[in-house]
């Protein structure tokens, strides 16, 4: 076994390296050109500058879009995580008819093409009288991020010793009190992790936001509108680099909290 591994390893690692370069090179070009002192995005680089980053602070429409995105992200993450928490607890604790079917159904948004979801949501929302707005995007993003919330919360509950909840009941606590004093604090790292992931997904989401935003764009929608103006391109690259760094930070934090939550649930 060991011998076989040694023989295969060099070609496999070359493959992996090529694969990673192919995946991430375009992404790395983003920060590279955001520091380039020139409006044309092409080699050779013409000098190092921070001016595109400095220019970002002056763009009022951009700041507004940023605030919209933060608001939508926080609201939809809260909504999705609340739903995910309850669903995950039900999946982990109870046996009920169609449990497996409903677990699958909850994961469906992951595989349905975004454009289909977006257009059908637009139709649905117009039908029930909900105009394209931030509220519409919040609902759409909550739908989209529930699968992430459910799977993160499920891993938090998988490691959760059910007798901890029974112990709280046994010590005279009410059902609601047990949820508040034991269940929530024990899965708190999972909740935080789910919030961060859902927020990041919502923050980066374009298709749904594009369909459902009225005159209040989210950041990705705003960036798309700016890309048509070549002079604004370096600005957009700087903004994109900031978002990239921010997203990576959030996902790393989310993973740290998720691991902490699995470690802590056992109570043994």
């Amino acid at each position, binding site marked *: 076994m060991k011998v076989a591994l040694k023989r295969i390893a060099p070609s496999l690692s070359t493959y992996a390296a090529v694969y990673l370069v192919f995946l991430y090179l375009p992404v790395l070009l983003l920060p590279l050109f955001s520091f380039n002192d020139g409006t044309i995005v092409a080699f050779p680089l013409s000098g190092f500058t921070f001016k595109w980053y400095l220019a970002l602070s002056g763009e009022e429409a951009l700041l507004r879009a940023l605030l919209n995105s933060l608001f939508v992200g926080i609201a939809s993450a809260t909504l999705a995580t609340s739903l995910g928490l309850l669903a995950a607890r039900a999946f982990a604790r109870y046996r009920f008819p169609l449990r497996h079917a409903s677990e699958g159904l909850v994961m469906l948004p992951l595989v349905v093409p975004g454009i289909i979801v977006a257009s059908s949501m637009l139709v649905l929302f117009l039908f029930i009288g909900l105009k394209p707005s931030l509220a519409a995007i919040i609902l759409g993003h909550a739908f989209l991020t529930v699968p992430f919330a459910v799977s993160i919360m499920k891993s938090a509950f998988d490691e959760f010793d059910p007798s*901890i909840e*029974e112990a709280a009941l046994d*010590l005279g606590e009410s059902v609601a*009190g047990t949820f508040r004093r034991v269940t929530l604090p024990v899965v*708190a790292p999972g909740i935080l992790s789910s919030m961060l992931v859902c927020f990041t997904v919502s923050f980066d989401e374009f298709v749904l936001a594009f369909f459902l935003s009225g005159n209040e764009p989210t950041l990705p929608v705003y960036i798309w509108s700016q890309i048509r103006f070549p002079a604004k391109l370096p600005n957009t690259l700087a903004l994109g680099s900031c978002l990239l760094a921010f997203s990576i930070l959030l996902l790393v934090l989310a993973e740290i909290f998720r691991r902490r939550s699995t470690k*802590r649930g056992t109570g043994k």
Partner: protein
Amino acid sequence: MTSHPIVELRGVEKRYGNLAAVSNLNLALSAGEFFSLLGPSGCGKTTALRIIAGFQEPTSGQVLIDGNDMADMPANRRPTNMVFQSYAIFPHLDVGKNVGFGLSNSGLSKAERDMRVAEALEMVELGDLEDRKSDALSGGQRQRVALARALVMRPKVLLLDEPLSALDKNLRETMQLELRRLQQSVGITFVMVTHDQYEAMTISDRIGVMFEGRLKQVDAPATLYAQPASREIAAFIGGMNFLAADVLSSGEKGLGVNIRGFGKFHIARNPKVSKHGERIEVGIRPEQIGISTAEEKSDMGIEAVVRDIAFYGESIHYHVIATAADAPLSVAVPNHFHSRDFARGDKVSLDIKSTSIIDLGTME
């Protein structure tokens, strides 16, 4: 002791579809008693305990605690507390907050609660660990925290679900004695579930033996050991040699029996056993059989050959074949260092006294 039982189960039954986890369970426990439910895994003992605690509802039957019907009483309002098998220590709280968890809804002042927590921790000898994080506790310490957390509530009944099974052997033996001492000092009724017969016998005032959802015998450990109500109980508790015997005479107190290949004996009638046909089964505990060299054989001695030897440290078990009966027997002798040992193939003489033969009733 109060006149009525502190815990009473009347015809308690728990069914899952066609499967009966517990059937027709009748039991009365007196106040201040240490009671153990003993049985192999899956015999329904944990279900019975959870029914008393209120975590599971009986399909039929009644649970009374201190004379009150618990039918509509949820777990969080019952005067019982439980020590869980996994201990179920709250991972986000330190030792003091774990122990004080149940007192926060009690209406006691902060000072009183702190005093009760300190007292409970003192009781389990964890006085100096009040601020310890729960993930920094050893197995034995977790067990003590779980005990303190339940005892601080001053329940009428303390329920323990395999409380020592997660501990290693030495710690388990220490905790057995300590659990017993603790129970006697607080005077609370303890109901413990265990699959370990030695643990049950060491700690309990009385033991209830369960098989396949049914309570088969309830007795003090010594009675259970000396007068098991059936072959399966005799086999489950301690070692036992089983032999078939023909009943020659049957009196009020005793039975005259012929154990083939061993001779005639007059044995005591086992009051726990109901039926006596012409043929009964008798049991002899391995440590009740005397063993000596064949040369020392008395008139009553039974000839046998040593087939296997198992060394247990404090005792030695000889597996022998009784020559006349061609029956395998197990004989246990204490390890008196320097005493004469037997080797495989040795001819020996067995000494069986009438008083050590246990009547197990009609052969099934």
